[in-house]
């Protein structure tokens, strides 16, 4: 059992939880994820690691309440426990000194970006962060990321905070301003990562994206999380979750992420959502 030590609402539908999992905390690094199962009847779901504290043995996850499991998770309180919590899984982010790095986070994708920004900064990079969301209520970690970043840009679809528009608009502006960009990290909704990758491809700027497809075991066994990368089938759980954004077949990923939408609705209905 893995105890919830802290819980915080980041927005209406996004929650943060600090979970006691010393073995996972000991090994976790930026870019990796965990798989949890709430109870005996629960589904195994992957969540990207938003932070970790090796000394206290805790792992932080930030999740949006979108389906049956994440909604149920959101109802748990400090002191409650989760039945299974396994990790860290997947490959760590490839952190090194690139020069100037643009880190783009969209919505709940801002959470896993946070430790990556921290490590990129520690590696001596000049970090430009771009955070975007549908509206200001869905933005998160602005203060924390601002402290780590050399530049911070914020945008919302409805203009309720920062520039009105998309993260790709801000990136385009940076490119137009002749900012020398060595690499881009983009984590967020699939459509956002696709748009960013298409843009940077034009300018030949290497772009890393972090994928969050449907998984079961998370150890390379089921292949449910397979994505087409450069025409080759890769497993996000063991080969990823980060991939070269210029090679990912985002359309197939979007389609595969909709595989169980009907069942998801049914599961939510059954619990009176």
């Amino acid at each position, binding site marked *: 059992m893995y105890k919830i030590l802290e819980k915080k609402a980041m927005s209406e539908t996004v929650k943060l939880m600090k979970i006691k999992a010393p*073995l*996972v905390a000991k*090994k976790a690094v930026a870019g990796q994820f965990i798989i949890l*199962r709430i109870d005996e*009847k*629960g*589904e*195994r779901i992957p969540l990207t690691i938003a932070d970790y504290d090796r000394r206290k043995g805790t792992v932080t996850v930030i999740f949006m309440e979108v389906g*049956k*499991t994440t909604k149920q998770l959101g109802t748990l309180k400090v002191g409650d426990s989760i*039945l*299974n*919590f*396994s*990790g*860290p*899984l997947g490959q760590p982010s490839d952190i090194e000194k690139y020069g100037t790095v643009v880190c783009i986070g969209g919505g709940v994708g801002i959470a896993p970006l946070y430790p990556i920004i921290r490590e990129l900064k520690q590696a001596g990079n000049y970090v430009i962060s771009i955070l975007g969301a549908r509206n200001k209520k869905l933005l998160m970690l602005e203060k924390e990321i601002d402290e780590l970043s050399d530049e911070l840009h914020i945008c919302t679809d409805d203009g309720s905070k920062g520039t009105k528009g998309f993260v790709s608009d801000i990136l385009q502006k940076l490119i137009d301003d002749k900012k020398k960009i060595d690499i881009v990290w983009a984590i967020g909704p699939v459509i956002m990562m696709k748009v960013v990758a298409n843009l940077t491809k034009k300018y030949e700027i290497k772009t890393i994206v972090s994928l969050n497809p449907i998984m*079961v*075991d*998370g*150890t*390379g*066994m*089921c*292949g*449910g999380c*397979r*994505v*087409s990368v450069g025409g080759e*089938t890769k497993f996000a759980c*063991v080969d990823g979750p980060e991939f070269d954004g210029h090679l990912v*077949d985002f359309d*197939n990923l979007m*389609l*595969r992420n*909709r*595989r*169980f939408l*009907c*069942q*998801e609705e*049914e*599961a939510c209905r*059954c619990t009176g959502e």
Partner: protein
Amino acid sequence: MAVKKTKYKMPEQDPKERIKNFNEVPYGYDKKTAIEEAKRCLQCKKKPCTEGCPVGIDIPDFINSIANGDFDKAAEIIKAKNNLPAVCGRVCPYENQCEGMCTVKKISVYSEPVAIGRLERFIADYERNKGAKIPKKSKSTGKKVAIAGSGPAGLTCAGDLAKMGHGVTIFEALHAPGGVLMYGIPEFRLPKEIVNAEVDYIKKLGVEINYDVVIGKTITVDELMEEYDAIFIGTGAGLPRWLRIPGENLDGVYSANEYLTRINMMRAYDFPNYDTPIKIGKIVATFGAGNVAMDCARTSLRSGAEKSYIIYRRSENEMPARLEEIHHAKEEGVIFKFLTNPVKFIGDDKGILKEGVFIKMKLGEPDESGRRRPIPIKDSEFKMKIDTAIVAIGQNPNPLIPKTVNGLKIGKHGNIITDEDGRTNIPGIFAGGDIATGAATVILAMGAGKRAAVAIDKYLKSKK
């Protein structure tokens, strides 16, 4: 009195009924039938059956005890060699092993061997229902062994090492024990309650099981080496193989592993009572003809498919599945399409699988497997409506551990290279089961776990 030529029948659920449930298909022998079947054994001195058993059970001896009505003694004899008899009595390919060597089978062309598998199952079930006796443990040696993976190889190795007095800890990546016994083999062939009971027995021998620990990620083998005196790696062949044809990533195409794991381990057949979903169409095509393929095709019928096909590129004679599994699949209405290979999968405008393009095959010269090689017949392509495709053409060893141990010798298929007794090139690290051999059977993995336990014991004693 002459020996009865054929095995006593084991009663089974009617095929029409059983495709509506996930309950076990055969009911097992009753006491009287078991004794009668045991009397068919000739008690030959040479014991060819025992030679055919990968874990070396003294088969004539336990059968003799059954014939004498001493079921407890029979259980003791089996358990001396086999820690998981209720599993073996259900999923072992006896026809190629013990029963394949049986003298009774050689009496005439119509003779069937003694039903050793059914008798083993009878004794295992008898003992489990009564409450398994825990053997006296050897004095503690103070040595500690870590085992990666709680599948058949790991459980067997763990049980034997514990009986020898070593402290054993198993690390399991998933949330449940048993490996393929839990996620792979369906409830109707191997009830999970039985797997749990066998695992309980291993735990009562003193083995500790830690879940949610992915060796190579949560803890590395090198770290385990600091804390343990020896390590056994039994992480299996978890990496699914693909057909490598267009459309394989469409919605509706599953690996056998994903399909079976969702249904067996995550209990998606009981959705939404259980949270894990599965989507099974009306027309399901399973590719491959091994035991796993049969499991997928039979599971599909039980999950509401109207038609369940087995699509196989070779002919009926080359099917690698056990005859019993093929027989059960046919009885249940699985449709076999031989000498047929998929060319591509086609989706609708939403990317959901709607049909497959197939090509007819013919058999050519034997290939390296000794089976005749299937060759496509030109211009024989045809389309068929399918809305679920399950790829069950085998698995490769899971690369998580092989990739993360410094200096460990790996074969070209990603398997860990070991000697006969499971020794790797690194002293103190042993491996066995599918991770070493590539995908094989439960009993072969158990045999490997057993031999490795002996080798580990020897190694620990040699250290001091």
